[in-house]
């Protein structure tokens, strides 16, 4: 199949076939990342800008490694060091980057929808690296890739997402992606963080972690996002972790071969105990490794769209 998108902004707009095509491309990229010489010349001469208006270590370094493995020229922009501080608007920033010859812009912003604004203003391809509470497509794709790697197929799996659903772009992207690939989803967390409107065919809401854990094939733990004011939605971290923290004891309720995931960074002792984080069924570090291959696939598909259509 031919990938027909200039931008990759949300999982919501991708079809199941498109998602699977990205995951298949990522498998080939994973072979590249397992070689001794991990670089291929594919994006030689193509300029990629990492435009980060929000702090990020993991996602930004993962994209940067992916870009380097594909031999792209890289420009890093972080809001604290850039002209944004001097009052430049988003669309002016975009036009300036385009004038410098940027072909692909990887963007993170605290405002939901910011990548769409940018996409309207520039002819560069936009890859969303997380926008506000809206979506985080690369994280979701690497989660799907990892689940597929461990479980073979995503269809009919029982996937449990635990924690701050309300403020989580990872949860939103994953709900879209998992539903499109045929998984059954349970959401669990404090009532204040798991609003009713998430309930839909294929998605059930729980407030009791023990109950929700029954029959779980995959558990995706979400981070308590201090910067997104998670803490205002429940009385105390201690109480949160008592009710919604994953412990070895609670884990026994899930299926024996349950897979434990977390987008990172982990707050050990809050979302899960160290025992769980380091359990042999935890694939948290595989997620990080797979993230590079998935991001290489996203960059490669955007670049090949550009070579076919511009």
């Amino acid at each position, binding site marked *: 199949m031919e990938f027909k998108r200039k931008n990759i902004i949300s999982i919501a707009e991708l079809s199941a076939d498109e998602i699977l095509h990205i995951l298949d491309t990522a498998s080939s990229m994973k*072979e590249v990342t397992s070689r001794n010489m991990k670089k291929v*010349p594919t*994006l030689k001469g193509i300029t990629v800008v990492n435009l980060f208006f929000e702090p990020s270590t993991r996602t930004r370094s993962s994209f940067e490694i992916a870009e380097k493995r594909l031999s792209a020229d890289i420009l890093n922009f972080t809001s604290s060091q850039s002209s944004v501080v001097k009052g430049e608007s988003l669309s002016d920033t975009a036009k300036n980057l385009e004038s410098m010859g940027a072909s692909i812009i990887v963007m993170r912003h605290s405002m939901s929808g910011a990548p769409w604004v940018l996409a309207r203003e520039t002819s560069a391809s936009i890859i969303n690296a997380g926008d506000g509470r809206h979506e985080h497509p690369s994280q979701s794709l690497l989660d799907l890739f990892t689940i597929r790697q461990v479980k073979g197929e995503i269809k009919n799996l029982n996937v449990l997402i635990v924690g701050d659903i309300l403020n989580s772009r990872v949860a939103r992207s994953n709900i879209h992606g998992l539903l499109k690939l045929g998984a059954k989803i349970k959401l669990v967390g404090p009532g204040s963080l798991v609003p009713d409107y998430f309930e839909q065919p294929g998605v059930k809401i729980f407030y009791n972690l023990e109950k929700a854990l029954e029959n779980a094939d995959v558990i995706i733990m979400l981070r308590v996002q201090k910067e997104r004011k998670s803490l205002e939605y429940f009385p105390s971290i201690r109480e949160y972790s008592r009710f919604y923290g994953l412990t070895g004891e609670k884990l026994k309720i899930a299926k024996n071969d349950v897979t434990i995931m977390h987008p990172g960074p982990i707050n050990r002792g809050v979302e899960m105990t160290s025992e769980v984080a380091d359990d042999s069924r935890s694939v948290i570090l595989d997620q990080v490794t797979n993230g590079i291959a998935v991001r290489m696939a996203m960059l490669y598909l955007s670049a090949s769209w550009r070579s076919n259509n511009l």
Partner: protein
Amino acid sequence: MKEKTILSSKDLERKTTRIVHEILEDNNDINDIAIVGIKTRGEYLGRRITEKLNSIENKNIPFGTLDITLYRDDLRNNLILPELKETDIPFNVENKTIILVDDVLFTGRTIRAAIDAVMDFGRPAIIKLAVLIDRGLRELPIQADYIGLSIETASTQKIKVFLKEKDKKDKVVLLNNNGI
């Protein structure tokens, strides 16, 4: 479009066998040899050649496959890219005699990319090239060491290779694009 068969199933079998014997004649130490098939049809031909070599010499010659998509020079030149497939080189290429196998040698660009790709896995002693059809019209200074059939073609013509593993039959045809 006019179609002319240039290799029948039997011809194809014979040409492959001849390539195998030329490889044996040409390479003193069979233990240094590794075969690498270029996807898609070079993989099948490469596998056939490896199996024949193995049965004649009673050896287990290393075999790998290469997808050269990531090494192509046309990502910047408006050409539709084929789907990305997996590369699998399960042996150390260091100091080996690598024999690249492809179905048709045309511009030489695929082979250029394949040489780059192999070099990324290490430093082979020698890289050689075996092709079923050499149709001429090179755009790069590249030549094959083992050739099933050399044929003069025009750039408007097309060569189609059918192999059992993928196409249910063994056959090579030349398509004439009569001014269309």
